[in-house]
Every structure is written in C-alpha cells, then in structure tokens.
C-alpha cells in the first residue's frame, strides 16, 4: 500500500476507534503495574478496586454505572506518565488510582495541572505527602512505619546493629533516610547501607558485604520479585541474621519463599471482622483469589470507596463530578467509614492509621504485635 494512504488509514482508524463519550457511565482510572516484574502488586490492587466497583454498582450507590479504566504503568515513572496522559486527556477521568512512589511522583504534576485527583494505596515514601493538593494517600507512609518499627527492633528485641539493602529508587531512598534518623535515635547503629539497582538479580557480593558488617538484623527496602531474590541469596550465602522490611513484603512471592520464614514487617492494622463492610470485602476477596486479604486489598478498595462516597455527596448537591469538586468535598468531610474501620484524612491528603507487626510463616503471615506504635 502506498505510504501516504497507509498513514491516512492509520490516522482515520485512531480517530474513529476512540471510545465515544458515553453519558451513562461514571468513569475513574487506575494507573497500575499490570505487566513486568511488579505485576503481582498491580493484580492485587486492581482486584481490590474491581471488588469495590462491583459493590458500588450492586448497591446502586451512584446514579450511573461506575466503570474503572485500567492503564498499565509497569511500575516505571515513564510508562506511568504515558498512562496518566491517556487517562487524563483521552478518557478524561476525574480520579485515578496510583501506586509506587516513583510513578506517583512523576504523574502527580500531570494530575495537578489538570485538576485530576490521584490517590495512592501502595507507595510509602514520605515525599508522597508533598505532591500537591490533588495527590492523596490512603496508606500510612513509611516514616510512620519506620518510626514505629525501629524501637521494636532495637529496644524490644535488642538488635542494635542494622544492615540495610535498599533499591535505588525513591522508595528505597526514603526508607534509608528514615532509618538514618530513627535507628540512632533508638540507640542502634546503621552499620552498612548497600544500594542495588532495580533490575539487579545478583546479590552474592552484597551478601558478602553484609556478612562482613556483622549486623544483628538485615533490613531490606526493595519491592516486588527482587525482594524474594535478595532474601534467597542472602540465606544461600550464609547470612543467618533476622530479616526485616516494610509493608512491601506482603506479596505471595515473598510470603511463599521458604527462606523468608520468620521475617518481620509492619503493615496497617486491619480488623477484617470489625464490621459488615470489612467482612464482605474479606469474603469476596477470598472467594475470588483463594487467599486471605491483606492491607493492600483494603487500601485499594477504600481508594475507590472514597471516590464513591465523595461522588455521592456531590450528586446530592447537584454538583458535577470533577477533580476540583472532589477535593473540595474531601476538605469538607474528611472522615470515611471504610474497610478496616474509620479513616480520617489529614489536610495534607494523608491518613494516619494503626500499624501491626507481622511475621512470615509458610505462605502467610501471623500477627506478632497487634498494635505497633512509636514509643
């Protein structure tokens, strides 16, 4: 086919294939890693959000059908920006679920400029609190986690020397910064901090250096499949010390790894039996996935539910559902009854919630301390 004709055909197909603006749906977006090494997280997050959408539609909570448009961020900032542009400029959604610190930091300016709300339920860097009015977080950020965890590790268990392995990514660096503050504050010392590239899989050299530093506990700040690699190679290479991490450990790749047994990590404290809402989510999740729900399940369910409740209020007031109005509504009424209990938004768009301490145990976790609080 002659080139100009081919180009014309391509252009025509692109225009006509664009989704027509259907007045009968309410659409929100999700910018999650659906492929790549972190797809496991995306699958969980999207699954939880989908259940929320199902519940919202089944209970007819909004005047029209709620539709969730999922774009693949691949957990990389650049892909996230491309996906965000599509959601904001083509699909014109007022509200986007986000995940991963690096991605969130990249897409926040896009949402901010377009007055579209982004809400994060997975990334934990404290920087996520500084991304503007249109960026909200329903997960307690890692500074809370480390603040509460450090005293437990150092004072309660007596592990004073901490070795850190962290991924070279905003999330890993945030954990390093927090440990640098809180470990000495509690009387411990950070004996070594080793940075690893995101794509790295070879950790025998790292293991050797960790052994050399003779720590009492090894803190891993990474995410996704790499965590399992690090744990396995540490154990394979003679590192016998206690392993600790932050909430990113709550994925099957880590929980099912035999070498991860006994590892400690905090997460939000969720009481699944607390009320009917939480129980419904827990049983639907178990039915669909065959596994126990975890904090991420609650967070992404709640992220959607926050939208639904805000949109309900806007509909009642006769206001259009735009990012601006959603923000204003949230500032008016900041507390929500969601899965796990009552969640209150602070003015800067973050939430504070109780934490619990978990231990990896044969494919699942057991709660070691139900209320992990800083000092």
């Amino acid at each position, binding site marked *: 086919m002659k*080139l100009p004709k081919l180009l014309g055909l391509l252009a025509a197909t692109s225009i006509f*294939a664009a989704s027509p603006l259907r007045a009968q749906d309410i659409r929100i977006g999700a910018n999650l890693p659906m492929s790549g090494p972190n797809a496991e997280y995306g699958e969980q997050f999207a699954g939880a959000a989908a259940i929320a959408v199902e519940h919202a539609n089944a209970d007819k909570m909004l005047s029209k059908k709620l539709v969730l448009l999922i774009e693949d961020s691949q957990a990389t*900032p650049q892909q996230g*920006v491309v996906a965000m542009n*599509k959601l904001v400029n083509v699909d014109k959604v007022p509200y986007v679920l986000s995940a991963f610190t690096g991605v969130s930091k*990249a897409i926040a*300016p896009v949402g901010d400029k377009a007055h579209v709300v982004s809400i994060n339920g997975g990334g934990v860097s404290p920087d996520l609190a500084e991304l503007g009015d249109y960026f909200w977080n329903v997960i307690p950020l890692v500074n809370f986690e480390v603040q509460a965890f450090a005293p437990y590790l150092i004072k309660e268990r007596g592990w004073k020397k901490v070795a850190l392995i962290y991924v070279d990514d*905003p999330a890993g660096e945030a954990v390093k910064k927090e440990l640098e503050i809180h470990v000495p504050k509690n009387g411990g010392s950070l004996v070594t901090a080793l940075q690893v590239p995101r794509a790295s899989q070879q950790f025998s050299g790292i293991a050797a250096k960790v052994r050399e530093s003779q720590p009492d506990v090894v803190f891993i700040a990474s995410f996704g499949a790499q965590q399992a690699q690090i744990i396995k190679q540490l154990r394979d290479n003679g590192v016998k010390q206690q392993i600790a991490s932050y909430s990113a450990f709550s994925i099957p790749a880590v929980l099912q790894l035999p070498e991860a047994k006994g590892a400690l990590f905090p997460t939000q404290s969720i009481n699944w039996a607390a009320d009917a809402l939480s129980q419904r989510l827990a049983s639907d999740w178990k039915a669909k996935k065959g596994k126990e729900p975890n904090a991420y399940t609650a967070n992404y369910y709640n992220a959607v539910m926050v939208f639904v409740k805000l949109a309900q209020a806007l509909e009642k007031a006769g206001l259009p559902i735009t990012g601006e109005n959603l923000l204003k509504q949230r500032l008016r009424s900041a507390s929500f009854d969601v899965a796990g209990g009552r969640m209150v938004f602070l003015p800067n768009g973050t939430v504070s919630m109780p934490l619990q301490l978990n231990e990896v145990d044969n494919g699942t976790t057991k709660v070691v301390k139900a209320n992990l609080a800083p000092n």
Partner: protein
Amino acid sequence: MWAYLNNLAVLITINAILAVTLNFVLGYAGIFSMAHAAFFGIGAYTAALVAIKLGGGFLLATAAGMSVAGLLSLALALPALRVRGEYFVAASLGLQMLALTLFSEWKAVTGGIGGITNIPPARFPGFEISSPPQYLVLSLVCLALVMWGVSRLVNSSFGRSLKAIRDDETAASAAGKNVAVVKTMAVVVSSALAAVAGSLYAFFLSFINVESFTLDTSVYLMAMVIIGGTATLWGPVVGTVLILLLPAVLSFLPGLPQTEVGSIQQIVYGLAMVLLMIYRPGGLWAAKSKAGA
C-alpha cells in the same frame, strides 16, 4: 482526543529529529552508533537543569545541551574512530551503558529513577510555550531547521567526503581526505543536534528520567532509521511515524490484551528489522528515491 493526537505528534516530531540526526552518522557516514539515546539524554538533563537552576529560557537551555552533548561526543569519537566497524559498535554500546549507569546513579544531578520533575515551560524573551499545540509548532520548527541543516551538510563537500568515506575508507584516505577529522565532526554534529530533541522533550513532558534514555531507546531509534530508509532525508521521518503510530494503533485494536501491547509492538518492529534486512536493506523509503541521496 485531539489532545492525545497532539501529544503523539509532538513525540513523533521529537523522535524524527533523533532519527534524522542518527541517520546523518549511520546512513551517510556509515558510523554505527548505539549511543544516540545517551546524547538525547545529555541534552535533556542539561536543558532541564539550566531551566530549573539558572532560570534559563529555551534557547539558552538548548544551546547548553548542544554544547555539553557535542563536547562529550568528542570523548567518544576521538579514540573510538581509530578502530574498525565492529569495535566502534562495541565502544558506542559501552558508552551508552556507562551513560545509563551515570544517569541512574548520579542522583544529585539526574534524580536517578525518580528523575527531574516540575521542569518549567519553555520560555522565550517575551512569551512562554505552555500549551501542547504551541509545543507542536516549536517542535516542527526545530525539526525543519534540523532537516535543513542536515541536508545542507549532506550536499556540501563535507557531505561528499562523508559518503566517500562510508563507501570506501581506504580510497577516501588515499584521495587526501582526513578521515578521522571528518568522522569526528559528523559524530559531534549529530550528537549536538540530538540534544535539541532532548531539550524539547524535557520542556514538553516537564518530567524526565533515565528510562527514556536506555539502550532500548537507542535500538528503537536505529529501527526508525533502518525501517524508514538510511541515507535519505525523509526516510527516517517515515520510519519514525510508522514506529510511533504502531503502539497507538495496537492499543486501539479490540481484543488485544493491554498488557501485551508493548511486547507485540516490539515483536512487530523486530520482525520488520529482520525482514527488511533480508529483502530491502535500504529501508522502505529507499524504494521511492531514484538515485539515493
């Protein structure tokens, strides 16, 4: 919808600048550089930093990017051009990987994976480029200038020397051409112009990070040049349009799982590269031009 097409058009234009400049060394000079994405990145980071730290406008930022990229390309060209084809490929590969490590790890300057965010819009004395249609105009102007510059160079005696060297280096050298100087200049020019694309990219997206400047990108650019047609002025542009429209078309096709679009896109252009090399090594556009460029 128009916003999306507008964005796509700007990206196509920026990549076309990269493809045209890569073609300058690859197609006309026969120099096989896998490091083009590194110079794209150097241009982008420099421009972003000039804009953020020094409050520079577009012209200053771009000029800075061009200078830095041009200077650093000297570092690659001078030693590496003494060696044969295969070695230069390996050297440029090495340079690309080194640049990649630097972009990822020199966080104070590049922000690593977190990148540089909130880059201010492109400023000119008197006005600011802030909306996507304005960026499209700016990019098209830059593309036109770059193409004009490249075509003037190609049709000058410098260009003739380049082609002579590409076709037979020994003969060109015997005819009195200073092979090393000519090749070095070609590399410097191409890298400096690649930095223009980098500057446009940084201002347009207002966010850059290492992921845009990887080996994959260099290969992507190479695919555009090869598929479109080496040693022709418009060939690389054609290649760019085709390769960039591909994911857009694929993502609108019903039934294709979203998660596989990236893979399928890469498979398509991988296959295109293979098939073209067997059946039409000159690229798609070469069939059109009669006498070659």
